[in-house]
């Protein structure tokens, strides 16, 4: 494999992980809760592309529409599902000032519910669906073959990260969200609306999950009821690497993880490759232990009182 191909692979996977980590990190910031359901929302978005049925052959549903309808519909569906989850499973607990443990279990239950509903409707057999068939082509750049979808993934990631970071940096809602992520009760004391901030955080998180649904399915073409679980785990790892509660760190952490796993996959001897995942999950524990603040400590962390 040429270095350029490897770099494209690494950045494409890293970009996907960065989007997931940012989605998880946004919610962690305002809720101090790891949203275990994030991966299953990605799965949910992917399954929205096909007609709900127990049949083996998947019939495209949203997936059959033109891109102009397909993309906003999928993103909208995932955002709605994410917001509905917040409304039903998290808001009542928040109102009651439930402890972190209950929120964690609740998000675990939401994830399990989504998986179960998908299993119920679509059965456990993996299905295949093709969206954006044009993207599976390969590009020939200076005699190096790279897959178009990987290039698109990288571009979409960059664009989306810019949009989200611009939103956080320069809008009023973004300012409120950043303040609430740092000290929620102080933000409330100033009059920041808790429900609105959390709504915005879940909305963006859902949007990011929806984008990952599309990118993932466009690349693999496979649907599986548990497909989101390893993706969510990658997102947790990314948030942990970046330092929980630090959004830029989450993005960097996800990117780092994607690059590291691609390189390990390519460079590890054949016999050790299956152990790659164990290594990646082990990495979480090691980082939590040696650098609980994440690998990329923010500039002003030292003076945080």
């Amino acid at each position, binding site marked *: 494999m040429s270095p350029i191909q490897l770099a494209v692979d690494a950045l494409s996977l890293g970009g996907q992980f960065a989007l997931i980590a940012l989605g998880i990190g946004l919610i962690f910031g305002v809720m*101090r*809760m*790891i949203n275990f359901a994030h991966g299953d929302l990605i799965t949910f978005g992917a399954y929205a592309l096909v007609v709900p049925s127990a049949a083996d052959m998947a019939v495209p549903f949203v997936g059959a529409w033109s891109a102009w309808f397909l993309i906003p519909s999928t993103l909208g569906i995932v955002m709605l599902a994410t917001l509905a989850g917040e409304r*039903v*499973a998290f808001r*009542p*607990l928040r109102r*009651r000032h*439930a*402890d*972190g*443990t*209950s929120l*964690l*279990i*609740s998000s*675990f*239950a*939401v994830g*399990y*519910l989504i*998986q*179960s*509903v998908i*299993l*119920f409707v679509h059965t456990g057999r993996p299905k295949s669906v093709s969206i954006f068939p044009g993207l599976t082509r390969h590009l020939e750049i200076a005699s190096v073959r790279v897959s178009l979808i990987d290039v698109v993934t990288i571009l979409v990631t960059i664009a989306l990260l810019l949009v989200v970071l611009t939103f956080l940096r320069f809008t009023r809602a973004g300012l409120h969200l950043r303040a609430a992520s740092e000290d929620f009760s102080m933000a409330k004391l100033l009059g920041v609306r808790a429900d609105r901030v959390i709504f915005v955080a879940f909305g963006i998180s859902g949007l990011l999950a929806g984008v990952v649904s599309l990118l993932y399915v466009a690349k693999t073409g496979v649907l599986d009821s*548990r497909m989101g*679980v390893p993706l969510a*785990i990658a997102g*947790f*790892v990314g948030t*942990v690497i970046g330092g*929980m509660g630090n959004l830029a760190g989450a993005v960097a952490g996800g990117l780092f993880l994607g690059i590291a796993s691609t390189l390990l996959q390519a460079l590890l001897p054949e016999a050790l490759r*299956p*152990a790659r*995942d*164990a290594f990646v*999950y*082990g990495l*979480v*524990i090691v980082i*939590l*232990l040696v650098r*609980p603040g994440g690998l990329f400590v923010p500039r002003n962390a030292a003076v945080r009182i």
Partner: protein
Amino acid sequence: MNLRRPRLFPATGLIAVLAVLAVGSRLWGNTLVEGALTEALLYLVLVVGLSIFVGNSGVVSFGHIGFAAIGAYASAWQTCCTGFRGVFMPGLPTFLLELDMPVVTAALLAGLLAALVAAVVGIAIMRLGGIAISIALLSLLFIVKSVYENWDSVTAGQSSLVGLPLYVDLWVALAWAAGAIVVAQIYQRSAFGLKLRAVRDDEAAARACGVTPWIQRLIAFVLSAFVAGVGGALYGHYLGTLAVSIFWLDMTFVTIAMLVLGGMRSLTGAVVGTLAVTATREILRSLERGVDLGTLHWQAPQGSQEIVLALILLGILVFRPEGLVGDRELGVRKAV
């Protein structure tokens, strides 16, 4: 804590209730009910193991089913498929290949292996804070799965291991469940249990009293991994076959649902939750098989039970967060 409480409760009361249920189901002679109760008792071992850590520390663990897997395979290494062990698991060291361990010893040793693993990883993980521990323990579950699925020479990898001695019946399950309850109660009443609950309720205050939080968490973690490991071993000998995928998210979800439904902070809660969830699952399972209402045959669609269970858990978290029994214990008047 009121130290003048009757010392035997709730353990004796809970065991008595379980024994009555067991005898009742045998006398009734309904094999379906007896099977369900056996499974409930096996799950109870796992849930009590989980509750030793979760109930006393207040930190939720998504990793205990990993210890069940470790225990299940450890017991298989000692007892499985005499004569063919080397064929299925060629990677085992020679002393294990020739071993013919009594099943009870094998289960205890299986628990010990799980406890040993917990001690090693716990020394590191238990120093973390609440949410970080939960994430690290979930990662641990993934590590165990990933390692065991790829360690073909001793676990048969992604295929199933068959031929475990089927010695676990209703009475064996009852005996081990009773044992787990007794262990949990002894721990809960011990100075260690008291110290850990002090950490759970107010870490700073507990520290000020000279309690080291991570050591107390570690003690509970190791003990609970032991019980979960034994539970996993028993489950393997109840099924007769093992696959890594048995010890995965479904089992994690079901055990956590059992614990939360009953009440995370009480041993009585663990028992009530386990029985309630098992009963619900059995009813839904039989609905999935179909019921005859007069001339009408109605069948619940496959997969209903998981959905209903997830909804019940969410409902409990929203409407009755302290679980069915809260922090009350059977036969114990609540301390003021």
